[in-house]
C-alpha cells in the first residue's frame, strides 16, 4: 500500500560518514517489503523540488530508518533534519524481491543500505563489503549478529570490492548474488562473476521524478526494451539490464 504522508523524524545520528534517520511510522512493517524504497523530501520546500529515493535500511513496528550519504544538495539537507521535524514520505515503492534464505550480498559503500535491509529477511549468508576506508564500513557487527559471514576490504589498504570478490570467487559458485554499489563496481563485477553465480541481481539507481511509475523518467534499457527502475526495479537480474 503506497501512501504519501508527512512523518516526523525521531532520530538523527551519524553512522560512519553517513546519517541515519529514523522516521516514525506505526505499522510500516506490514507494508515495507524487501527491495523497496521511499521517496523523501523536506516538508515546506519546493526547492529541492524532487523527493529523493532512499532505500529502507531497517523497519520495525513503529518506525523505519534510512541511511544517507551526502551526494548533493538534497541529501545534504536531508542529513540536517532534526528530530521533531517532518518529512514528506512517499512509499513503499518498487517491487518486493525474494531475498532468499542465504545467498551472497556484495556491497560497495552506501550500497550497504538496502543490503542491510535485505539481510533482515535472510537467515545468514555471506556479505562481501568494500569501502573507501574503515570509517565507511558500517553495520558490520550487526550483520554478523544476524548470522552473516562478513568479509570486508578497504581501498586504503587491500583494494576494491572486486579484489575481494575475486579472492572469494569460490563462494559464489551456484549461489544467488545481490549487488549494490556504484556503476563502475557493477560493471567490473559483471565480468568477474559471470560464469560463477546461479543468478545475480543488482540494485539500480536512476534519477526519479515520481517514483511510482507515472513519469517514465527512470528508464533503463533491458533485453525487453525500456523498463522503469521505480516500478519494475530497483532490483533487476544483472544479465537483463544495460549498466551505465
Amino acid at each position, binding site marked *: 500500500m503506497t501512501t504519501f504522508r508527512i512523518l516526523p523524524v525521531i532520530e538523527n545520528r551519524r553512522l560512519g560518514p553517513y546519517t541515519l534517520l529514523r522516521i516514525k511510522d506505526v505499522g510500516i512493517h506490514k507494508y515495507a517489503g524487501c527491495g523497496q524504497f521511499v521517496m523523501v523530501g523536506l516538508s515546506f520546500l*519546493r526547492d529541492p*523540488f524532487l523527493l529523493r529515493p532512499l532505500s529502507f535500511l531497517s523497519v520495525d513496528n513503529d518506525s523505519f530508518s534510512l541511511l544517507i550519504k551526502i551526494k548533493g544538495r538534497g541529501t545534504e539537507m536531508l542529513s540536517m533534519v532534526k528530530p521533531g521535524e517532518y518529512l514528506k514520505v512517499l512509499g513503499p515503492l518498487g517491487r518486493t524481491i525474494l531475498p532468499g534464505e542465504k545467498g551472497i550480498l556484495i556491497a560497495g559503500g552506501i550500497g550497504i543500505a538496502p543490503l542491510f535491509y535485505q539481510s533482515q529477511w535472510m537467515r545468514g549468508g555471506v556479505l562481501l563489503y568494500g569501502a573507501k576506508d574503515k570509517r565507511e564500513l558500517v553495520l558490520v557487527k550487526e550483520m554478523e549478529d544476524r548470522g552473516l559471514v562478513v568479509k570486508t576490504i578497504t581501498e586504503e589498504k587491500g583494494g576494491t570490492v572486486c579484489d575481494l570478490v575475486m579472492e572469494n570467487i569460490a563462494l559464489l559458485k551456484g549461489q544467488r548474488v545481490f549487488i549494490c554499489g556504484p556503476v563502475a563496481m557493477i560493471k567490473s563485477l559483471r565480468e568477474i562473476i559471470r560464469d560463477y553465480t546461479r543468478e545475480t541481481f543488482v540494485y539500480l539507481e536512476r*534519477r526519479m*521524478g*515520481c517514483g*511510482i511509475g*507515472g513519469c*517514465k523518467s527512470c*528508464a533503463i534499457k533491458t533485453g525487453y526494451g*525500456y523498463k522503469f527502475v521505480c516500478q519494475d526495479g530497483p532490483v533487476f537480474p544483472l544479465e537483463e539490464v544495460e549498466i551505465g
Partner: protein
Amino acid sequence: MADLSVSFTGIELKNPVMLASGVWDLPYTELIDFEKLGGIVYKSISLSSREGNPPPRLTEIPCGVINSIGLANKGIENFNKEILPQLKDLGTEVFVSIFGESIEEFAELTSRITDVSGIEVNISCPNVKEGGLLFGADPDIAYNVTKAVCSNTDLPVIVKLTPEAVDIVKVALSVKEAGASAITASNTFQGLVIDIETHKPIFRRITGGVSGPAIRPLSLYKAYQITRAVDIPVIGSGGITDWMDALEYFFVGVSAIEVGSAIFNNPLAPIEIIDNINRYMDENEYKNILEMKGEVNEERC
C-alpha cells in the same frame, strides 16, 4: 458550498482541476482519489509505440524539473485495449493527449479515439525530432493539424500550445480558426542543463522541457496573452503547485487548470488545490468559478 463545476464548449468538469499529461499514470490511482478530480489528461499517445529517449530523462532544476522523456508510450492500440477501460472506471473525465509526427498521423490517430471526454492535441513537446513544438511554433502547421483532428472527430478538441512559439497568440488564433474547442496554455519551455562532471548536456538530445514552479510567471503570462486575445476557453498549465497559483490563473481568465510536475513534489497537490479553492470561494462568497474569471484590468500605465 461553492459550485466548482465548469462547462465549456462541450466539456463538463465537476471542478476545474485536471491532471496534466505525461506526469502521471495508472499507479497514481493508489495515491490520489481520482473521483475528486475535475479531469485527467492521459499521457500523449502516438499511432504506434515509441520507446522514448535514452536516459537520463529527467533532472532537477531550481524549483522545477527538466525532462527529455521523448513521448514514450505503447501506441493507440494498446491504449484503447489496456488503458482506456481502466481510466473510464476512475470516476472522472478522461481526456487523451495525442501526438503525431505528421498531419496524416494526427488524423489517423484521431479517428481511432472514441469514448473519451475530449482530445488534447500535443503540438508542443520539445523532446522529439519530428512534430512536437516544431508544429506548435508555426501558426500554419498548427492550423492544419487542428483542422485534421477536428475533421476526424466529434469530440471536443483541445490544442496544447508551446510557449516557445514566436507568437503564441497567433498560433492560438489559428487553432481557434481551425475549430479547436479550447486551448491549453502551455507546455514546457526549452532549457539546457550541463552535467558538470562530463561537461556535456545532461540529455542526449541536448535540450529538455522545463516545468514546475520556476516557469509559473512565464506560463501565466502566456495564458494571459491568450485569454485576452482569443475568445475560446483556455486551460492554464505551467508551474501550478497550490491554490494560490491556481487563483492567479483563474484571475487571468482561464476556464480550468492542469497540474503537472507539482505531483512530484507533493502527489496530493491536485486534491489540496481543489479543497482550498472550495474554501477560498466560500470565504470570499464566490458562487461559481466563472465569477473569478478575468478580473484582470487593462494595461494601466
